[in-house]
């Protein structure tokens, strides 16, 4: 299949491991990505915290650009995905707002393309069985807990995922790769990402709680699908609480034996290589 691709700012910088592994996995699974022409930032929490119209106009600019290609748009960053879905939701619900935003953009919003996260695309379009069939290096010994964070699934009427309190798509994918996925109750708890820089002490507390939960569940790593969660979970826990965090696409790359799968592991702020070495997975 072919989709429009919105990398967002993080995937070109802090979250480049996600971008690179996302592209490699897409190639291997026959998902063709076409980057949205001249995209711009979605505004993230800074826009909706301060100016509602701006928080709709910024993602709308990208949605309109993607509409030219008339394909589903795949948004890997959970934070961007949430802002895109929010913009779609409000533009469809509020005619006056739509008119104001179209005025600011000088273009019409059609609302005809679906906004999708790669978890949904891989789980529903490729499927767990097809993914399992491509595994050449089972992730034996890896015990991840899957961490969805908050913005991918909430609010449920906007993000439109089933099982938003106890999602399982990532768990199933990791299971298909041969990992021993651990169950835990913090799958969708917030890590405090949006206050990471301005109220660090609170966020350290929140991240420590998550890591303690992961350890209690018997995990030796965490799997995420959001560059904000990644940055936060790698940087903010107290030193004795840290454990390796992977993008789910990095683990798919390893399990599928993709050529450059090891490259992205080198730039993590919490080095996951010792664990993978010890398990003889790299």
């Amino acid at each position, binding site marked *: 299949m072919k989709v429009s691709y919105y990398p967002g700012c993080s995937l070109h*910088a802090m979250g480049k491991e996600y971008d690179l592994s996302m592209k490699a996995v897409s190639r291997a699974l026959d998902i063709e990505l076409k980057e949205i022409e001249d995209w*711009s*930032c979605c505004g993230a929490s800074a826009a909706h915290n301060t100016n509602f119209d701006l928080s709709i106009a910024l993602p709308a600019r990208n949605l309109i650009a993607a509409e030219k290609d008339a394909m589903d748009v795949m948004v890997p960053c959970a934070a961007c995905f949430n802002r895109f879905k929010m913009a779609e939701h409000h533009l469809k619900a509020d005619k006056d707002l739509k008119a104001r935003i179209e005025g600011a*953009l000088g273009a019409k919003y059609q609302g005809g393309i679906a906004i999708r996260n790669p978890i949904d695309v891989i789980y529903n379009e490729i499927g767990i069985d097809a993914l399992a069939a491509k595994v050449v290096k089972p992730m034996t010994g890896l015990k991840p807990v899957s961490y969805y964070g908050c913005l991918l699934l909430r609010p449920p009427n906007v993000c439109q995922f089933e099982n938003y309190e106890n999602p399982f798509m990532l768990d199933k994918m990791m299971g298909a790769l041969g990992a021993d996925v651990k169950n835990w109750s913090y799958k969708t708890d917030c890590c405090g990402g949006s206050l990471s820089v301005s109220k660090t002490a609170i966020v350290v507390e929140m991240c420590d709680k998550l890591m303690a939960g992961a350890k209690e569940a018997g995990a030796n790593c965490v799997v995420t699908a959001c560059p904000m969660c990644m940055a936060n979970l790698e940087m903010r826990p107290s030193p004795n609480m840290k454990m390796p965090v992977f993008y789910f696409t990095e683990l798919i790359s390893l399990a599928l034996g993709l050529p450059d799968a090891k490259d992205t592991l080198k730039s993590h702020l919490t080095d996951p290589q010792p664990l993978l070495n010890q398990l003889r997975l790299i």
Partner: protein
Amino acid sequence: METFLEEVNKKIHGVPLQACYHCRKCSAGCPVASHMEYNPNKIIKMIQNGQKDKVLSSSTIWLCLSCETCITRCPNEVDIARMMDVLRQMAIEEGRAAKEANVLKFHEAFLSSIKFGGRVHEMLMTVHYKLKSGDFFSDVDIAPSMFLKGKLALLPPRTKDMKSIKNIFEKTKTK
């Protein structure tokens, strides 16, 4: 004259706050409730009581993480996360000092970065935030290691059509 409750409801443009029956499920699930000056459901009560000053100058509105747990679990679909956005925007438009000043400064630095290049450049944004907040010492240990790992791009990324970005900021300007 419009009451504070009516004003907030109009801006939320959804389920009115009167639908809340104060079961406190929102506050029980809020990850930062223990750090807030007033719990999320207390804020609703205060809005109903017309305590505008207290609400808009509280730390609560700036500590809310927008994690959307409250709206997800509210039995009456009261959108507290959206309410917090509305309250923050009202506080800004009225020129009130934010009780958690650095939270707002961080948002401002982030938006300046978009205004400047259409995309966010983490390094420039951080410098901008540090200048505004005077908080020069946090995270000094993290930045160099990010540099070495090639995580911080040297050149700011840019959207080509900057005119459209400028337009968006101008036309959505509130005051």
